[in-house]
């Protein structure tokens, strides 16, 4: 037997492309957040509400990722935001090359903020760097307070946690403190926002944070 020693990262190609994306964004001063969650946690609703709140103060763009349909892109486009939809046709996560292709079709003129809405999945998107400044994991109260313990990798790899649908807490079996403790046990540095797209709770704080583009606090 002869041996070839190579010591290469399996995801090196993705990581290199992600780094190229990151440089593109940094040169233009664009703040990029990669939104991850299970399906139905409310990522698109959060974007809609965020764009209403940010109207006139900050220009944003969106890259949408879904297994099928451009329904999310249609929703977001109503807010006058440049948007490109990636349809993965089965793949359960976005990769840096897909984001790069989407970037070619986006008009970044005046854009300060880019949201990449990943495919709804609490497992695979955790492994892939897309070139974002931070991953934001969205968890809704209807999913239960044990989700961070069940899908720890996503919480470990995220910098922010949005707890969504907090208006539903009286009706669902979710203890907000337990949820936060479970998440912080995995990642004590997580910055947490408690929000509701229905009541608008938490959106002023969230949008103020976005306007600061405070990467250093992550």
């Amino acid at each position, binding site marked *: *037997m002869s041996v*070839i020693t*190579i*010591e290469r*990262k*399996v995801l090196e190609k993705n990581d290199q492309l992600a780094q190229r994306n990151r440089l593109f964004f940094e040169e233009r001063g664009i703040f990029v957040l990669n939104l991850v969650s299970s399906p139905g946690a409310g990522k698109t609703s959060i974007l809609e509400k965020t764009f209403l709140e940010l109207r006139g103060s900050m220009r944003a763009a969106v890259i949408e990722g879904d297994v099928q349909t451009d329904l999310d892109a249609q929703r977001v486009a109503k807010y006058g935001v440049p948007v490109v939809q990636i349809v993965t046709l089965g793949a*359960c996560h976005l990769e840096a090359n897909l984001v790069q292709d989407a970037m070619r079709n986006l008009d970044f003129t005046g854009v300060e903020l880019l949201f990449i809405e990943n495919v709804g999945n609490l497992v*695979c998107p955790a492994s892939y760097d897309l070139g974002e400044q931070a991953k934001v994991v969205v968890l809704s109260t209807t999913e239960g307070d044990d989700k961070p313990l069940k899908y*720890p990798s996503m919480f470990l790899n995220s910098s922010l946690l949005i707890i969504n649908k907090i208006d539903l807490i009286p009706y669902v079996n979710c203890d907000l403190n337990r949820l936060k403790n479970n998440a912080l046990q995995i990642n*004590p540095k997580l910055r947490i926002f408690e929000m509701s797209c229905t009541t608008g709770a938490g959106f002023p704080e969230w949008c103020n944070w976005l306007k600061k583009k405070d990467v250093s606090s992550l």
Partner: protein
Amino acid sequence: MHELAIAQNILEIVQQSVPENQTKSVRGIRIRVGQMSGIVPDSLDFCFSAIINDTHLQRARLAIEQVPTLSQCKTCAHRFGIEDWVFTCPVCQSTNLELISGKELEIVEIELADEGDEAI
């Protein structure tokens, strides 16, 4: 869940690293998989053996080394293994930790059969 994509990446890297006339001789591919990499070794093994069927690498097998999650406390310098994803120092309860290992997903080396081995 994305082990198939990972298996395809491994195949690509091996094909790039081994001269084309030697790909048939590849027998082993040593992989390091961290406990927190999000990769299930059995599933990766299954996906890899499925995609090499129609390639020159069909006699290659993955040798997967699992790497435990190790951490060092930045407050008291205690080194310990992370269990149940609790990122708190068991000695001083600090949460200011440095991750030493556990996120690996790397190809370490490739084993090739020599001409003499082929006869066996």
